[in-house]
C-alpha cells in the first residue's frame, strides 16, 4: 500500500466515523448553551441505538422491510427526546446536580437497552442497515467524491445540520433564548422568557440528537447492536462541545479530528504495523484528555451558568 492510498483510506473511513460524535455533540451543544450539562448522552445513545435496531431486526424479510430503517430512526429520535425530557425533569424541575444525574441516566440507558436486548434479541446479530447512497455526479469527482459524497444519507444529513444548528443558535429567537437561559437565566426570566420551558425544549432536542447518533451507530456504522456499542462516544461528544467552544462549527472540526485519529488507528492495524491493538483502541480516549487539558477556558464565550439550576425565588 502506498502512502497516498493510506491517507485516502483514513479520510474515507474518518468522515463516516465522525457522524455519531457529530450528531450527539450538536445536541449536547444546544444542551450546554441552555446551561445543562448532559452526561446522560451516553445512555441516550445506547437507547437510541437499541430501539433503532429493533425494526430492521424484526421486520427483516417482511414486505414492510424497506421502511424498517426509517421507522428505527424515528423511534430513536422519539425515545431520545423522551429521555431528554426525563433528564429535564430531574435537573430542571427537581434541580438535581447535573453531573451525577447524568451518570444516573447513563446507567439507566445502558441498563434498559441491555436488558431488553438480552431478552428480545439474545446475542449479537447483524441487520442490513442503511446502505450507502453515492450522490449522482458528485461522487464521481476523483478523490473528493470518494471522501465526501459516497456515504449513507445520514452522513450528509449530519454535516448539513452543522450550519442549521449554527443558524438556529445565533439567528433565531429560540437560539437567542437558549443562549440567554444558559448564561444569565435571571435576565431571561425578567424578560418573561420561561427558563424551565426553554431548558426542557433544549434537552428534548439534545436527547433526540443523541438518539439519532445512537441509531447511526447501530444502523449505519456497525449494522448491529451490542452492549458496548457506544463505547464512551457519548462522553467524548460532551468533551467535543468544550473543544468546539459551544459552536457547531467548532464541534464539527473536533468530531472530524477524533474520527480521523480513530481511522488512523484502524488503518495502522489493517496495514499490519506492529503496534499493540489495545494501545490503538486507547488512542481516542487519551486524545480526549489531552484536548481537555489543552483547551483553555475562554471567558465570555460559552454558557457561564452551565450546570447551575435556576430558581426564580432563590435570591441572589
Amino acid at each position, binding site marked *: 500500500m502506498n502512502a497516498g492510498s493510506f491517507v485516502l483510506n483514513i479520510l474515507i473511513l474518518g468522515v463516516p466515523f465522525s457522524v455519531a460524535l457529530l450528531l450527539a455533540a450538536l445536541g449536547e451543544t444546544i444542551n450546554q448553551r441552555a446551561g445543562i450539562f448532559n452526561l446522560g448522552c451516553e445512555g441516550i445513545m445506547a437507547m437510541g441505538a437499541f430501539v433503532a435496531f429493533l425494526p430492521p431486526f424484526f421486520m427483516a424479510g417482511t414486505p414492510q422491510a424497506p421502511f424498517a430503517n426509517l421507522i428505527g430512526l424515528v423511534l430513536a429520535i422519539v425515545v431520545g427526546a423522551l429521555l431528554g425530557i426525563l433528564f429535564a425533569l430531574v435537573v430542571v424541575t427537581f434541580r438535581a446536580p447535573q453531573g451525577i444525574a447524568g451518570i444516573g441516566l447513563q446507567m439507566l440507558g445502558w441498563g434498559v437497552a441491555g436488558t431488553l436486548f438480552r431478552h428480545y434479541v439474545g446475542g449479537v446479530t447483524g441487520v442490513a442497515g442503511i446502505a450507502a447512497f453515492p450522490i449522482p455526479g458528485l461522487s464521481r469527482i476523483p478523490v473528493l467524491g470518494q471522501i465526501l459524497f459516497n456515504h449513507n444519507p445520514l452522513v450528509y444529513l449530519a454535516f448539513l445540520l452543522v450550519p442549521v444548528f449554527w443558524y438556529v443558535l445565533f*439567528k*433565531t*429567537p429560540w*437560539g*437567542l*433564548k437558549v*443562549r*440567554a437561559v444558559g*448564561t*444569565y437565566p*435571571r*435576565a*431571561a*426570566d*425578567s*424578560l*418573561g*422568557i*420561561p427558563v424551565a420551558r426553554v431548558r426542557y425544549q433544549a434537552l428534548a432536542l439534545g436527547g433526540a440528537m443523541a438518539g439519532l447518533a445512537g441509531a447511526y451507530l447501530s444502523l449505519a456504522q456497525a449494522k448491529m447492536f451490542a452492549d458496548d456499542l457506544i463505547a464512551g462516544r457519548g462522553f467524548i461528544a460532551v468533551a467535543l462541545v468544550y473543544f468546539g467552544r459551544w459552536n457547531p462549527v467548532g464541534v464539527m472540526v473536533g468530531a472530524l479530528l477524533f474520527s480521523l485519529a480513530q481511522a488512523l488507528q484502524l488503518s495502522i492495524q489493517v496495514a499490519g504495523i506492529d503496534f499493540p491493538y489495545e494501545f490503538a483502541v486507547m488512542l481516542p480516549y487519551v486524545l480526549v484528555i489531552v484536548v481537555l487539558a489543552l483547551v483553555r477556558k475562554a*471567558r*465570555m*464565550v*460559552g454558557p*457561564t451558568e452551565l450546570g447551575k439550576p435556576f430558581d*426564580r*425565588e432563590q435570591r*441572589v
Partner: protein
Amino acid sequence: MGHEPIRSLELRGITKRFPGILACDHIDLSVGEHSVRALVGENGAGKTTLMNILMGLYQPDEGRILLNGSEVRFRSPNDAFDHGIGMVHQHFMLVQNMTVAENVALGMKSSHRPFRLDIGAVRKRILEVSERHDLPVNPDALVWQLSVGEQQRVELVKTLCLGARFLILDEPTSALTPQETDELIALLSKMSSELSIVFISHKLHEVKALSDTVSILRRGRIVFEGRTEDQTPADLAALMTGHDVELPRVDSGGAERPVGTGMLSIRELCVKGDRGNLALDGVTLDIAPGEIVGLAGVSGNGQREFAEALNGLRGVDSGSILLDGAQIAGRCAGAVIGEGMGYIPEDRNTEGIVPSFSVRENLVLKDIGGEPWSKAGFLRLGAIADNANDLKERFDIRCPTTDTAAGSLSGGNIQKVILARELARGPKALVAVYPTRGLDMGAEEFIHKQLLARRSEGVAILLISEELEEIMNLSDRIAVIYKGKILKVVPGKDASKRSLGLLMAGVVDE
C-alpha cells in the same frame, strides 16, 4: 400591546410569604399619572419583592393589582410589559456575552419571527428610543465591554424599547458615581413628564431630589405615605428604621499620625486582573496601627484585585506589601493569614463562610490547623464548641445552637460570624470589603462599632466601600481609587462628598 395610558396603578392588600418570613404584609400602594413615587426602606423591608410581584415575577399570596381601576393579573413579566410596565432591576438583567441589540431582542417579542430574529428592527427601535430620550447606546456593543454607567443606560433603553410607560427603578444609583447619579436623577425627572415612575432607594437625598410622593416600608408593611417635600431626610430615616439612628463616627481629631510607621505598608503594587489587564497600577499606601483608611471608588476600579492581593489570593506582578515588617506580597493565603491579616470578604456567603458548615466550624475555619482547635492533626471538638459558645455571646450571633449550618442564618448574623472569627484571631491588620452591604441599620451600627473598637486597639484597617457615608464616618484618611491607581489620599475630616465624587470619576482638578 395595550396603548391605553396608565392613569393609575393600585396595589391592594398585597401579601407574600417566604419560608420563615412575611416579605409583604397587606401592602397598599397607588401611583398616579406622570408622578414619581419613591419607595424607601431598609434592605429586606420588602421593596424588591413588592416590585417583583408587580412585574409578574412573583405571585402574591393575597391581594390585587388594579390598573386604571380594573383588576389585572400578571402571571409573567410578559403580562406586565403588555400593560406598559417595565422595571430596571438593581442587578443588571443583561446577558454579558450578547450584544445590546440581542439583549433588547430577548424581550421584544415583535422581533421574534418564525425561524428568524429580526435584529434589524430591534436596532432601529433602540436608535429611536435612545435619540428620543437622549440616551446614547451602541446596539452592536457586547455588554461585557461596557462600563457600569453604560450598562445602566442600556437597561433604561431596553425597558423603554419594550414599551414601558410605567417605570420601576430598583436602586438604580447603587453602582454609580455621585456625578453619574446626578445625571441620572436629572434625566429621570425630565422623563417623568411622560412616564410614571416608582423609584426604589434608601438614599434619602435622591428621594428628596426626584420624587413627588414617598412610601416607607418597614418589615413588609407600609409605615408612612406622604408628600416628599413635607419631610426632611432625617424624618425619613427615622421612619425607615423605626428609631433615630446615629451611626458611630470616627474621632480622628488630635495630632496627625506620623507617616512611615505603617502597620500595613504597600509599595508600588501592580496586580493583574482576570482578563490579563493591569488591575492595580502602582498603588502605594500606608496604614498605621490604630488607623482606618477608607478606599473610595466605583466598584470595578481594582478594589477586588487589591483586597485579593493583600490576602494572598491573587498573584502580585511587582511591588511589595509589608505587614508589620513581613513581606506578604505573592505569598499564599495561609501564610498571609498566619502573619496576622484579617479579612472580611465581599461575598459573605461564598467567600466568608462555608454555608453548609456549622457556625462553630466556621468560627475556626482559618485556624483549624493549630492549637487549641486541633492537636497532632486531630480536631479538639470540645475546644471548638467552647470557642463558639463564647463568641456567640460576645458578638451576639443569633442562632439556635452553634451546630446550626451557618448558611441558614440571616445576612447580619453571617457577617457577625465572620467578624467574630476575624477579630477573635487578634489580627494586626484587617481588610474589610463592603462590610455592611445589604445589612440593616442595626447590624451596620454593630459592625461600625466593632471596627472602631479594633481601631482603638491598634489594628490597621483598610475599609473598602462604595457607600461614601460609611467611608466618611469611619475613616481617618480616605484614599480614592480610579482605574487601578490611588488618585489622592485626603484626611477624613477634610473630605466632602463632592470632592470625593469628582475623584471617583477620575477628575483630579489641582
